[in-house]
């Protein structure tokens, strides 16, 4: 069924051919911070199949993007790294509340997970989350109050600790606090943390999306850094949605839909995988099998009871994250 859908959308895309069939020949994709290179390639691929269209990109932390859209940024589609930020758009009437049914896999064309990047030879021998609490290890990840990327890291570390300490809240908090104590710099976004780790040579391990660790090795040299995949991590879905309020106003829904559908085509999936994202398309996943080590992934639903609950218990002002991070 899925394959049929994919073929269907590909054919539809081919039939649409040139953009002249659409009333709008330009859309804006508001996306997350570390997806610049990915969408540069996605757009190249899409435009090759649909000559004559333009896709503008905007990249920033997705909370900032969501706020900008509510305050008037006319983004036709959002490709975020956080479900909660699309929920904010839903709450403000910009996206329909059943957006997760609009595209396959709960509207997440690809996914990733918080993973580790260490310096060549792994001098500190970092293998798993419990190495991050050691006194001799300096850890780099962005500020979880300003970066969705870091919120996944916080949740993944918490999920690991919950398993390791049988859900004992005091011990979990102690474990996560120790990790935070080992972070010398909290940058505001994922890309800034990459700069701190790579250019400033601060820290022994960088925790960021696996897609970013792949990108760093490609950019700065496979021999300078090593990826380390921990024993367990958290599924990070990268949800996409059509911004109804904007596409209705600009009459760009067809274009927006065709663009997001492209992410699910074998070609779109391949581009995503080349940029270190894990994909659901079986053929493409098999082709890139060597690049993605096996890992046990837990979900926010299983460990934390869903995003609304996480938001309330962990991320709200004065929540568990503030108790660990803010009031030290």
């Amino acid at each position, binding site marked *: 069924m899925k394959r049929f859908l994919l073929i269907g959308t590909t054919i539809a895309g081919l039939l649409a051919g040139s953009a002249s069939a659409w009333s709008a020949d330009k859309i804006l994709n508001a996306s997350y911070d570390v997806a610049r290179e990915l969408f540069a390639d996605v757009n190249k691929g899409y435009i090759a199949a649909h000559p004559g269209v333009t896709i503008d990109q905007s990249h920033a932390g997705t*909370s900032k993007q969501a706020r900008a859209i509510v305050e008037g940024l006319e983004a036709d589609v959002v490709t975020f790294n956080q479900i909660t930020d699309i929920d904010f758009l839903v709450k403000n009437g910009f996206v329909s509340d059943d957006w997760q049914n609009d595209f396959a896999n709960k509207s997440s064309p690809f996914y990733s997970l918080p993973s580790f990047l260490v310096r060549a030879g792994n001098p500190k021998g970092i293998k798993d989350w419990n190495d991050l609490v050691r006194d001799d290890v300096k850890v780099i990840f962005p500020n979880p109050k300003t970066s969705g990327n870091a919120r996944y890291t916080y949740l993944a570390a918490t999920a690991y600790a919950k398993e390791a300490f049988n859900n004992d809240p005091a011990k979990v908090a102690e474990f996560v606090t120790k990790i935070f104590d080992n972070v*010398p710099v909290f940058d*505001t976004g994922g890309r800034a943390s990459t700069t701190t780790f790579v*250019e*400033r040579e*601060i820290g022994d391990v960088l925790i960021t999306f696996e897609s970013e660790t792949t990108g760093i090795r490609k950019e700065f040299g496979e021999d300078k850094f090593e990826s380390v995949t921990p024993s367990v991590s958290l599924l990070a879905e990268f949800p996409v949605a059509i911004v109804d309020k904007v596409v209705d106003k600009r009459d760009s829904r067809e274009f927006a839909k065709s663009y997001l559908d492209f992410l699910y085509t074998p070609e779109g999936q391949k581009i995503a995988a080349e940029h270190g994202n894990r994909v659901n398309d079986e053929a493409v996943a098999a082709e890139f099998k060597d690049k993605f080590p096996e890992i046990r992934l837990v979900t926010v639903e299983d460990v934390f009871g869903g995003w609304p609950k996480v938001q309330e218990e962990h991320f709200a002002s004065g929540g568990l994250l503030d108790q660990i991070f803010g009031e030290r």
Partner: protein
Amino acid sequence: MARRVLPGLPLALGITLVYVSIIVVLPLGALIFKAASLGPEDYWRIVSSARAVASYRVTVLSALAATAFNLVFGMALAWVLVRYRFPGRRFIDALVDLPFALPTAVAGIALTALFAPNGWFGSILGLAGIKVAYTPLGIMIAMSFTSLPFIVRTVQPVLEDLDPALEEAAQSLGGSDVSIFLRVILPLLAPALLAGLSLSFARSLGEFGAIIFIAGNQPMETEITALLTFIRLEEYDYQAAAAVASVLLITAFLMLAITNILQARALRYTARG
């Protein structure tokens, strides 16, 4: 009203008032309005939380240190530019304005690259055990970088008008160098210096772009108030963001008001002089 030499006063006045209202009063009014939509208890809870208070301390102390630094070096720079003629003087004079023109984020990244432990300055300072990047010292340096021109540019024109004959007269009357500086030059410079200092301090309070790269952003230690405001926005908590920002706004406003009063006094002193 007597006829002015230049025509069009009502028009010019109208444009000015509209401009000031739209560009300055309206956004600030919206900020106060947003903050005021919190009850007094919520407002107090937000602005007096341990983390917020720590951020005020970091911001104000760094801004004071940066302003003190600029007082000494800004005045020296203005003095040298006015009183000495040397090759490259015009070039240095133009360089002083660079922090105004440079996007502050660019300044922040450049300073971080220099002062990071593996940077040109950072690696040398590291040998002496001094850490700059990711410490309050880094915040201070970023602040003094972006606010240096305020002191130089306010003091410079006054120095240019200062007749060297005054110093010579004081000298011939037997004044020591120190007392000439303290009792002749400084009082004449005081109004301009105060204006420059207050602008420099106010700018440092509000600086964001240059600082977040070099600060390290550790809550309670190197987190500035502007970043805390930004964090509250990221939580979609507009009211709390406005509350924290209003503290900065009130501080800057009070400080500018106090300097205006002091300046009026200093002016009276010189007029009497």
